[in-house]
């Protein structure tokens, strides 16, 4: 069994006339953190949206755990074990923490697939457990998410990804809008994923964060990959020049 978790080869994507992704290759091993950097419009978001099934691929190939895959929608990506924490908020403010953790993948007692009775007891217990596992302490699964702080919400999002035993985690600007303390917590958390063999892609504008946390750094500019190297081979200043 190879160490390869995800392998993308020659990915291309056009938005109308805009060639947003040009022959991009990307490899991630188990337990590896990739720092993905680049200026706005460099193609980072396009790349990860293809991997997590939000956008389709124009041409190119994706292999996951050695098998060729065709990720048509977010559900397929999640079924493979690719979880994504999007830059924009994917929490439902009016809904409780328990509902948010399980939304789209609710444990049910019985019924037809899309009309089944929720197992609320399990949702409440397991959501609190999942949240505890990521180091957060929230008092009740019934609290609506709108009452949580930015960091707590991010914690719930991470707990959601972790609960479903992801093999790969994509974090798109996970530390935006977070306090210093909360940011440290998220970074610490991503570090801890390495030991359990989860590969992750960490996207951030904050190159210091990326440099601190990543094993390998991939830089993008104008839809192309411009660098791919172990972080030991580079410095933050060099990175700034590379993607500028």
């Amino acid at each position, binding site marked *: 069994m190879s160490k390869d978790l995800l392998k993308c080869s020659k990915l291309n994507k056009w938005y109308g006339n805009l060639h947003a992704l040009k022959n991009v290759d990307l490899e991630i091993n188990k337990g590896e953190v990739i720092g993905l950097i680049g200026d706005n419009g460099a193609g980072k978001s396009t790349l990860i949206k293809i991997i*997590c099934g*939000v956008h389709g691929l124009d041409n190119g190939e994706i292999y996951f755990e050695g098998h060729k895959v065709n990720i048509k*929608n*977010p*559900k397929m990506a*999640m079924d493979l074990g690719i979880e*994504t924490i*999007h830059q*924009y*908020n*994917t*929490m*439902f*403010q*009016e*809904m409780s923490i328990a*509902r948010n953790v399980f*939304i*789209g*993948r*609710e444990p*049910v007692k019985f*019924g037809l697939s*899309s*009309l*089944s*009775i*929720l197992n*609320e007891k399990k949702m409440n217990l397991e959501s609190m457990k999942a949240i505890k596992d990521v180091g957060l302490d929230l*008092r009740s699964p019934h609290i*609506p998410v*709108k*009452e949580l702080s930015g960091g707590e919400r991010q914690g719930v999002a991470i707990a959601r990804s972790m609960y479903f035993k992801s093999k790969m985690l994509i974090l798109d600007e996970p530390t935006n809008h977070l306090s210093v303390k909360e940011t440290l917590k998220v970074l610490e958390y991503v570090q801890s994923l390495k030991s359990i063999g989860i590969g992750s892609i960490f996207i951030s504008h904050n190159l210091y964060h990326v440099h601190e946390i990543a094993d390998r750094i991939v830089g993008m500019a104008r839809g192309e990959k411009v660098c791919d190297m172990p972080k030991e081979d580079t410095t933050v200043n060099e990175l700034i020049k590379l993607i500028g």
Partner: protein
Amino acid sequence: MFSKNKIKSLLSRPEFSALAIFIFLIVVFTFVNERFLNSRNFMVILSTYPELALVALGITILMISGEFDLSVGSVFAVSPIVTMILIADYELHYIVSILLGLLAAAFIGFVNAIVTVKFKIPSFIATLGMLFMARSIAVVISGGFPPSVPKDLPTDWLVGRVDMLRVSIFWLIGIALICNYILKKTNFGSWIYATGENKEAAKDLGINTFWVKTTCFIICSVLAGFAGIIQSFRIKTVITSLGQGLELQAIASAVVGGASLMGGIGSAFGALIGTFLLLIIDNILILSRIDGNWFKFAVGALIVIAVILNTLTKNSADKIRLKDDD
């Protein structure tokens, strides 16, 4: 003593302000007119109540999913007209005819969904078009004069009298309980709220928002059609103008009952309370012999007041910060 926690969860319920206004008006109306708080009067109100409440219930579910339907008034006419034509002209069994009448409503809901969701047209416009089209279909298929309701048609199971009430109230209660259960206790219910609050996020989490919305459009349409059939059975006649103007009353009921035009908020119970509020206002105007033209004024004022109250209570609920020991 109420705990802060209980007060907070009470205040943040979408139907809270409607319920508060409801209790307030009952108290006031009781003082204004001694005939108001009288079981006979309430039974009169309740005998026509299910028809409007079913439409409001459907609209509420659709509004929670983030869409809107102006065509319910026309569907309210199409379903009974299709049903009566099938019974009178084609001599089909009345149950089969009713089911086909509801199928026609479901089809209209489906078309509304396709136009809105697939072509990304605001549901306001899509269903405004359907309002005219469905009304026109109602007139055309019946040649302007729908067949009269056969005298021997069994109607008791749907609108028969039980004391002063009608059987239709039990249909309403049953359907409302089912809707409430689906909204609050099933995965599909969760997806309706999620889709209404943040469609993109729901999609990214693997929810098929297209089918969620389509199903809600169909539920809304079928409930409107069923309400129309109930009314035609009750008044024993079908006319092509059945349900004209009903869409705005139903939307008013839904909004007064706490459903948000932005989606993601609302409840089945709220729809029932909202509709009841509209009807008791109408009732007190009649009892007090006030010029009926004030009805629209009262409904308009009620909508504005209910929505303002909704916003205020929601804000104050959000402000109640709970400490760990609550």
